[in-house]
């Protein structure tokens, strides 16, 4: 694994940073061949973070208990794996990473509390964590007040751009627009039925989807939301049958997913016949385990990563992940995005030549990873990642088969003009 610190990035022109950047480059070269860092702790850390001569402390903040623990486990595993790999390569600026893990317990004030504890008491140099939008919204003021750095892995609704957060998942437009373009072009879809769980991400995403569908001159024939955890979808399935859309655009999450796909299948909507096509942005390989591969075979998902991606980075990543966490594990989009967090941070620290939050922030735009399992990614000025969007076809074994990927990286656009 090798990270390239981009020297031609937009921030490199800032005079004050050139020296630091150069040092970082030199240091990272050293550290990768195992030399201890020459830089004194006071030089790379002027703001009192928990950095010693040979260690640096970071935080991991996810739900280990409560309803969200289901989803967040993969992210924790990915972040730990990345940290262990970085340590094995010599650490960051010659320092081994130590992590403090806190449990958000699926409870938003607890997230805010623990974030504050990590920043104020533990003085961590970065935090990898949060999963739901609600937890991110709860910790955001804490990170801005105490000037911390959060690496947030989930694909989410956008409408946010904080100087204290790096968003390693896709924001809504990246995921949605490419998917809808694809289904309109390849499947000749003319009409869409939008469906989601009732909270901010599905609602905002469907809003963007609706605007884009209408822009393409196509039609939305229905839009509906069910409470989180709802398990009876027969009525909406009847409505879908009545409206006969070409595409069911489903953003159902959590336990509802299982009920929805099982009932869809039982009601005679066979997704493999593609009448209608089912396109989702909420079902990763993780969710398929609960749904059962045979219940969702034939559905399409639009996201940036599938475990089955065929490239050397991903092969190495999947192999390492399984070695560390067990053979029967599956890796979804968010897990991969969580894995990017520590690597992006490492690259930014080495580019900045310092652990100081402000310097890391300045160094972050333009950071690129050529070793990401999903392929090449780059940090945009708006702190989101440039990344490709892919469409996968669900197979009975619970994996996606890649059927399409965008030719270029999709630009992240958290405040999309004309979509609000």
């Amino acid at each position: 694994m090798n990270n390239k610190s981009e020297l031609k990035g937009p921030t490199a022109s800032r005079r004050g940073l050139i020296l630091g950047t150069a040092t970082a480059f030199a240091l990272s070269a050293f550290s990768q061949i195992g030399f201890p860092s020459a830089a004194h702790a006071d030089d790379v850390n002027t703001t009192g973070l928990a950095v010693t001569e040979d260690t640096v402390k970071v935080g991991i903040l996810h739900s280990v208990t409560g309803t969200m623990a289901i989803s967040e486990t993969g992210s924790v595993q990915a972040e730990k794996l990345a940290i262990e790999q970085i340590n094995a390569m010599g650490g960051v600026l010659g320092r081994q990473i130590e992590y403090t893990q806190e449990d958000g317990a699926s409870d938003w004030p607890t997230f805010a509390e623990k974030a504050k504890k990590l920043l104020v008491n533990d003085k961590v140099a970065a935090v990898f964590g949060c999963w739901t939008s609600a937890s991110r919204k709860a910790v955001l003021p804490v990170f801005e007040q105490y000037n911390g750095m959060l690496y947030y892995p989930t694909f989410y609704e956008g409408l946010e751009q904080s100087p204290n957060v790096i968003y390693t998942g896709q924001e809504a437009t990246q995921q949605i627009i490419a998917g809808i373009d694809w289904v309109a072009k390849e499947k000749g879809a003319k009409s869409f039925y939008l469906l989601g769980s009732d909270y901010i991400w599905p609602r905002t995403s469907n809003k963007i989807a609706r605007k884009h569908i209408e822009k393409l001159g196509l039609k939305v024939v229905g839009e509906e939301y069910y409470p989180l955890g709802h398990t009876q979808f027969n009525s909406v399935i009847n409505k879908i049958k009545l409206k006969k859309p070409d595409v069911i655009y489903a953003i159902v999450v959590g336990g509802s997913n299982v009920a929805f796909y099982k009932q869809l299948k039982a009601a005679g909507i066979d997704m493999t016949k593609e009448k209608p096509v089912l396109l989702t942005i909420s079902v990763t390989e993780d969710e398929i385990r609960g749904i059962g591969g045979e219940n969702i075979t034939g559905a399409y998902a639009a996201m940036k990563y599938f475990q089955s991606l065929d490239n050397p980075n991903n092969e190495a990543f999947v192999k390492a992940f399984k070695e560390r966490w067990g053979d029967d594990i599956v890796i979804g989009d968010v897990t991969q995005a969580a894995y990017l967090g520590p690597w992006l941070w490492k690259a930014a620290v080495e580019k900045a030549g310092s652990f100081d939050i402000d310097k890391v922030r300045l160094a972050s735009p333009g950071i690129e990873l050529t070793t990401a399992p999903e392929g090449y990614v780059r940090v945009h000025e708006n702190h989101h990642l440039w990344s490709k969007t892919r469409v996968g076809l669900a197979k009975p074994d619970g994996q996606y088969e890649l059927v399409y990927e965008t030719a270029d990286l999709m630009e992240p656009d958290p405040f999309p003009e004309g979509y609000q």
Partner: protein
Amino acid sequence: MTNGKFFLGRQELLGLAILAALIFIVLPASIDIFRLNLIGKYLTYAFVAIGLVLCWGMGGILSLGQGVFFGIGGYCMAMFLKLESSTPEATKIQSTPGIPDFMDWNQITELPWFWVPFNSLAFTLIAIFVLPAFFAFIIGAAMFKRRVGGVYFAIITQAIAAILTILIIGQQGYTGGVNGITDLRTLLGWDIRTDSAKYVLYFLNGALLIGVLIACQFVLKSKLGRLLVAVRDKEDRVRFSGYDVANFKIFVFCFAAVLSAIGGAMFTLQVGFMSPSFVGIVPSIEMVIYCAVGGRLSIFGAVYGTLLVNWAKTTFSETFPELWLFGLGALFIAVVLVFPNGLSGLYRTNVAPAVDRWLGRSSTSAKPPLEDPQAAE
């Protein structure tokens, strides 16, 4: 127990003094502002627990929907703070400046009518008292006048908590949805996120709590309080004595609702946001356990119970997240099976006689007339 004129006996005065010393002197002196802020947050739940002592312990009415009132208070305060931080200047990047950010994201172009009055702090403060009392009155009047019993009341209040949660989440354009109302900054220009503000809010919270305890003690020592206990133990006899039982129950339910709302408002101020996860069924039932651990008959016990459970929750979930739910579950069972009088029961049997001797009174006269919780229901 009272010395005739004054509603605070020596026991109560001593209890108040110890609690005040703990809240105002011991805790601030011994822990940092981060932990103190946490304690402040726990103490806001204590308002709810005290309300539950009144309506459950004393009145025999178990409400599983106190989160609803906590939420009403919290949301009122959050709406005011959100409007204050959503000035046209602060929100000029939005397509409609001057409205809360989440409304703008949901294509709402005008402040909804029910948000408008919350521009005024005076209205907000009044609403925090009036709204919960109003809703509690409607629920209470409908149910107690028809003599709906404890179990039914519990289930219906629980359903109301579920409904309100779904409603708040579903109407995200007006309520902020599942994320809640976040990023609250100032109160009348005063930055509530700073450490000094946190201290001030903590002490304000503590003072309110002491005030509420005194008010509750007044209610309990009045004729009303004694009637409540009588209603709990033998409702029919009170009715046959010519009292309208329903009115007492409605009053105490409204009173508890207002206390919860005060707690909710203080919660928003200290935590900096409000979300539907404090309204639903799970938090509502957890609030009952605070009260039960403290001893459902003691308003002081409720405060200590709240602090103890939350402290345990924070500590255990940090060190043994796996074990915490087992612990909490076992606590529910233990408090019912093994020590139904909770902390205050332990205090009363083990400590109180000694205290009484120390206060120089004969312990026989100090027995409050409300021992047996088994008689509830």
